[in-house]
């Protein structure tokens, strides 16, 4: 019995040895896919945006801080001021759109961002830095291209000094940021396909049409009022130019936004037209961090000068009249309201 057990064990050993020679086991295998790693920045927790009280809502949201009584000379900003900080940094950091034709858009032929908003910022920069040898003040401006939804957060975080991004002044935004006086008065309209038969936003709502508007904008807030526009289907996109794409691809029947922006869209797509009257008021202001009250006052003084010395009218002429974007000649600059009490 003992010998038999030994033989059996030997047989198993021989079998396994032979088996290993014949590659019964030890499979070769490809390793799995390589996965790249990167440390992602922590995302701050979002809290519910503050709401205005009824009394606050009843007040004129375009009230801004009084302008500085006297503008300091370029290059001689008051010590400790936000302007001095910008001057010593050597450049003003601004948040802008790069795809809102006429107001803030990248010109692919020159690689420059240009438009009404950009010119407004250039004047503020010129007041801080003075004329530069090249004559091109934009070399003192650092552009950060931001989406509609990024406008308030980029100011709150201090990532930019000023935002000029067709931004409507309203009470709820004042709770988070500060605004200059109104530098342009726009209104919400609707862009439809040429020959669609839609003449107003109410026509579109009656047809149960789909309208696109940028997320985080006052435009989408207005359209989302189901009681006002029953039957209207609203879709949001990160940027308003995504809405023009949605229209061109048949995802949306219309785009609703400020008439100024829509005029730029109609210029890019001859198969579309802006219809109807303005159904909201959209007063544009430059946006600032809430704490940079001195920069707001400084900018208000610059804008006030522009209103009176014709620079504002020149900008209007260049971007909205010469381009044929808005009918008629140069409109009157919106009246400034500087009655907000300083904090």
């Amino acid at each position, binding site marked *: 019995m003992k010998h038999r057990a030994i033989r059996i064990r030997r047989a198993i050993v021989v079998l396994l040895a032979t088996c290993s020679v014949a590659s019964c086991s030890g499979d070769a295998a*490809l390793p799995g896919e390589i996965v790249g790693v990167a440390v992602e920045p922590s995302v701050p927790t979002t809290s519910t945006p503050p709401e205005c009280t009824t009394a606050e809502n009843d007040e004129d949201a375009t009230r801004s801080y009084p302008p500085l009584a006297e503008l300091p000379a370029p290059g001689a900003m008051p010590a400790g001021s936000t302007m001095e900080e910008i001057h010593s940094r050597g450049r003003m950091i601004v948040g802008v759109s790069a795809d809102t034709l006429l107001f803030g858009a990248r010109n692919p032929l020159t690689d420059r961002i240009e438009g009404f908003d950009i010119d407004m910022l250039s004047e503020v920069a010129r007041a801080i830095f003075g004329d530069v040898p090249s004559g091109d003040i934009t070399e003192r401006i650092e552009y950060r291209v931001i989406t509609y939804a990024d406008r308030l957060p980029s100011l709150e975080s201090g990532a930019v000094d000023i935002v000029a991004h067709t931004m409507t002044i309203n009470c709820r935004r004042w709770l988070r940021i500060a605004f200059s006086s109104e530098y342009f008065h726009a209104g919400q309209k609707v862009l439809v396909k040429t020959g669609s038969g839609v003449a107003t936003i109410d026509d579109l709502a009656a047809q149960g049409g789909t309208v696109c508007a940028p997320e985080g904008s006052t435009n989408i807030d207005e359209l989302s009022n189901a009681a006002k526009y029953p039957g209207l289907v609203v879709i949001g996109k990160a940027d308003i130019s995504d809405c023009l794409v949605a229209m061109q691809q048949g995802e949306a029947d219309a785009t609703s936004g400020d008439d100024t922006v829509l005029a730029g869209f109609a210029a890019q797509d001859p198969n579309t037209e802006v219809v109807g009257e303005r159904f909201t008021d959209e007063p544009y202001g430059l946006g600032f961090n809430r704490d940079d009250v001195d920069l707001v006052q400084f900018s208000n003084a610059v804008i006030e000068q522009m209103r009176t010395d014709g620079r504002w009218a020149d900008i209007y002429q260049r971007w909205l009249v010469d381009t044929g974007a808005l009918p008629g000649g140069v409109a009157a600059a919106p009246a400034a309201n500087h009655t907000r009490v300083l904090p």
Partner: protein
Amino acid sequence: MIEPMALTRSAGRLAGDTPTQLRVATAITVLCAVAVSIGGWYALDRRANAIDDAGAAAAQLVRVQEVRVQVVQADSLASTAYLRGGQELAEQRRLYDDSIAAASGGLIDSAASAAGTDAATLQRATSLLARYVGLAEQARANNRQGFPVGAAYQRQARTVIEDVVAALREVETNSRARVNDTVASGHRSSWLLMLTALVLVAAIVGGSVWLAQRFRRLVNVPLAIAGALAIVVLGVVVARSAAAMTDADDAVIGPLAAADLLAQGRAAGFDARSNEALTLIARGNGDAYEIEWLRSASAVEQSVDRACSRFSVGCDARDWFGSYRSAHEVVRTLDGDGNWDAAVDASLGAAVGLPNARIEFEAFAAASDEALQLESDRAAAGFATAGDSLGNLGWLTVVVGLIVAVLASVGYGQRVREYR
């Protein structure tokens, strides 16, 4: 060794008288020889099929990875061309067209070689690629006319290309699993040949010993020849079969693994280059794309580092990517400091006195491509060699089994005749 004499003795005792015992022994040996013929042929056929399937899965993996590289390269070229606006270089445009054509052709070839869910996934990738091309063209056309809506088309094209890449990665994962499964199946297939061969040799040896003891003769010549033939030929068959499997293993863990790493590194590299362009298009607000750049760069570095350290291939590509990383860091510093124009120039290679990210990246792309082609060819050759090694071993096993059966019958027959 399995108890051959005990087996034969037991059979003999059960069978009763000696002639009957001889006939039983003959039957057992012939049955074992036939089992070797059938089992051996089946096992070798399975191994040959497994090696062929592994080679086909490896070829599919390489093909799909090449499509992914071409797709990501096309997107990288479109993104950087967007930065140039109306000044797109003719050479870059030609490269873009070539990449799209190569990707489309590769998708057709891959779909023809795919089955089941992979075929459906590749079909989806094909239609997504067509959609991408349309969107990229819209972006380009609008961009050239100075219409900013081109940026929106470019963003949409980017999301579509991400879907194409995700689909291709799914097929790559399946192909990788198929290579591993078929190789494992090839390894498992040998047991039947081994078992039947061992039992046959045991039966012949046991029978020979029993005959020697029972008939007082040292050697039964036919049975001895059968044993020698079985041991020598089946030994050669087993050895060559093992060698074929080793060749397949070597192809998998050698050039195919290296090619897999290099292809992944190349795809991640082009993705990084796309993200560099997107950080600049976002102009000062490209943090999200920079995170993606870092993720892609990490994948490149892991891939080419492993390829270089384990297989001594792609070391040039690793070094060039290091140079590109340095140039990219300069691009980011310039952009972060508000010097966007200089950042674009450094990225596109138009800057004087600054690192040239384009040149460094193109050197990485060329070095990794050369290494990848070499390793892919070596992997294909490895599988072909493995398949060729098996040749007609299956039929040889059948013939040997039948000859052994005849010799065993003759050998035992000589002793049976002594009782007539």
